[in-house]
């Protein structure tokens, strides 16, 4: 197991490296540059800026410089937010996104799993149909609709929730809800189908034959196996929520990472693109490694190679 973990981590680092390399060359292929504005600046000023940030060097040299600096923990200055370093921006915003995502994941699991169980347990009955309809809505409604709906209802109309920022506990309600709707609905559906699948297995029938209560069967025997696909989903979900949701952050004015990620690309802020992409890639890969290990703990039949 130890050997496996080391191997997975090594592979993970290699993947991050490949992502970083690809991003570096691709972003430089895209037309436009970081110093573009409606107001044209003089050629001398443009050149001075490029020299200042090392953009006048050949691409390959810039790449090696960037990678060496990165390994020394230096992600450079943002090209657009003058005077701010990339690591300052990322590490001031990451905790905000992480906290929000963490809460949203907990909410999604706490709501999604029970709903999925109820739905499977009552297969074909009213409760099941009701939950299926809810789940479909949750998956189909994009977050910009649900966010605006929440904002207008609870912020503008009822005026019971703050419309912006994360300054106190209540201000988390709307953004967390908006973020959690999709994963909750997804987990509910996943949980339902996986539980139904497990409930049809032979060992469940055996348990029934032994006279166990359906409650015991569900919680002691079925749930543990049925949770596997949900756990597989938690990894990528957590990573994607942690790197922030552009829409939710924008609508609720949350200073998180998601917006930086999107705006760095539209702004051609090269150092920011690299910084946010590497963080995102590292998170996704780390989440997957952790999920694989969790898998092994839950299901000893899985062989880690």
């Amino acid at each position: 197991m130890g050997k496996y973990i080391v191997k997975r981590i090594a592979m993970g680092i290699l993947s991050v490296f490949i992502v970083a390399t690809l991003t570096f060359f691709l972003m430089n292929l895209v037309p436009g540059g970081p110093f573009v504005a409606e107001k044209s600046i003089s050629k001398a000023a443009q050149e001075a800026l490029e020299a200042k940030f090392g953009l006048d060097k050949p691409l390959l040299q810039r790449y090696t410089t960037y990678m060496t600096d990165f390994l020394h923990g230096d992600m450079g200055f943002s090209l657009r937010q003058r005077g701010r370093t990339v690591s300052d921006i990322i590490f001031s915003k990451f905790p905000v996104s992480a906290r929000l995502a963490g809460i949203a994941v907990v909410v999604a699991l706490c709501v999604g799993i029970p709903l999925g169980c109820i739905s499977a347990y009552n297969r074909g009955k009213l409760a099941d149909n009701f939950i299926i309809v809810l789940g479909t809505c949750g998956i189909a409604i994009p977050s910009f609709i649900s966010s605006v709906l929440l904002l207008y209802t609870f912020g503008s109309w009822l005026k019971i929730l703050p419309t912006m920022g994360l300054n106190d506990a209540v201000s988390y309600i709307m953004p967390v809800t908006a973020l959690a709707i999709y994963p909750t609905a997804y987990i509910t559906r996943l949980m339902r189908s996986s539980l139904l699948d497990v409930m049809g297995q032979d060992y469940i029938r055996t348990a029934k034959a032994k006279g166990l209560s359906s409650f015991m069967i569900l919680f002691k025997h079925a749930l543990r196996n049925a949770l596997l696909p949900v756990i597989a989903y938690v990894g990528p979900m957590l990573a994607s929520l942690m790197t922030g949701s552009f829409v939710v952050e924008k609508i609720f004015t949350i200073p998180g990472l998601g917006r930086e990620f999107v705006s760095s690309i539209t702004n051609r802020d090269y150092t920011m693109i690299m910084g946010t992409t590497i963080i995102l890639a590292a998170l996704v890969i780390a989440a997957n490694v952790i999920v694989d290990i969790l898998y092994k703990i839950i299901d000893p039949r899985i062989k880690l190679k």
Partner: protein
Amino acid sequence: MNVKKILALALAALMVLAMAACGGNNNGGNTSTPASNGGNNASEPGTTGEPTIADEFSVQIGPNPETLDPALNSAVDGGNMLVTLFETLLIIDENLEVKPGQAESYTVSEDGLTWTFTMRDGLKWSDGTDLNAKDFEYTFKRLADVNLAAPYGETVVGMVDGYQDAIGNPDKDGNMTTEPDIEKLNVKASDDGKTLTVILSYPCPYFDKLVAFGTMSPVQKATVEANGDAWATTPATYVCNGPYMISEWTPSERIVVKKNPNYSGGWDSSRIVTDTINFLLLEDSSASFAAYNSGTAVMIKDVPTEEIPSLTKVEDGGDFYVDTILGTYYLSMNLNKAPFNDVNVRKALNLAIDRDYIANVIMQGTYSPAYNFVGPGVSDASGMFFDNAKSANGGKTYISEDYEENKKLAQEALAAAGYPNGEGFPTITYSTNDAGYHVAVAEYLQSAYKEVLGITMNIDRVEWASFTPMRRAGDYEMSRNGWVMDYNDASNMIELLYSTNGNNDGKYNSASFDAAIDSSRCADQGDHFKFLHNAEKIMMEDYACIPVAYYNDFWLQSPSLKGSWHSPYGYWFFQYAYVEE
């Protein structure tokens, strides 16, 4: 059994919801003052001695500024922060008049080349240290520093004597023959710091307005040199000299400014009454609208366009304001490419569109139709530039307001160009980025050109970061363009078409137009404007570009906010603003 379980779960869910709602109510009650920022506001609302004026209020004037370094900023929302945080040598007041700011007076030599500013006594930075003319000398020279690459450097100090030496003299291949040396810029503070003398290399009759531009805000040498570019990123090192100073900046969330206790200058200190202003850095118009409706913000700039039809204008007793700003939405045609090199084609494309329909229907009245290049709000030697242009042109705008007549003229012009009813006219491509009304306007153009002229136009949507370089490189046929003026002088608009101007995207090149612009760069105000009027007439008769609409700002403002004003520069001035409780 099942029903019971569901009931139990439902009850549990209800309890959670109820708790959340309680929390919401309690908090909503406590935070009746705008913005609950972690104990920043020491005095409790209701316990203050003067119940009439609130300690703080919140407004939204734009998203997170990329930079608040006066030399580096080129955005209007950053500029709006600068007019609140800094004070330039001269200021522009609510009546658009140039007034003494940090300078108590100034003189201009007869040839218009020597400008001498006399500073007020007892000026201070927000950190309490002394400020004098030497700080302005440093600021002006810093703007010419190529290594800083100030986007507006050339605009504001390009006419100062020695500017070319300050930025270096390139040969015709662009290689430097002399090293840049900012000390060559002919700006000199007296030894006692009382006066600042600026020598210009050519007359600039609007230099007083330039000096009042936010880019010219003084920066403190000590903090800039100690902290580098980072000086302008944290309140601790952000030393300013205006009526307000930054006390908190959470990027992408809010900038909190407090009254600057060390302020002295051109604004009347007794009228600066509000302690704290929160600038909410909202990016989404729905978020702004919610903040306004919930009472968090008393003024918002980003109004969702879909809400506009339901808003009541201030003239009708509502809270929705529309006010002119100095800018024109226009279309560029690439004059280096056929068929746009034919003046008749340009005329046809110019006259075939219904500007009134574009501005009032497509753009929902948030723009005004443009029949001249320079719009209202721009001043002249006496009166307004727009009105004077109109009266000199027989009381009419250069492009007639009569659309039916225009349509006929457009069809005739196209026939004269050799394309009757559009026969044989090549398919043209119109490039635009996708923001605001740009695509809706493009679709209108497409249908109008088809209907009136029989011309087929394709729409090419280009991502913003690629759009400007593409347009500047001349890699387009027709494209959206627009300009909001930096200072209130018509030259700023008209010079966009000067042959060597960096923003002359249509590559318009007319000897008589350039000559008129050259002549307008003179000390005499009367001549200055006379030649600018000539230049505008030449480019309009050449149909060098297609003016479509004049920009307006539109915003929502609660009647409780008083003392603020909107200027045609696109700024809201909050120095005298207050909210009555």
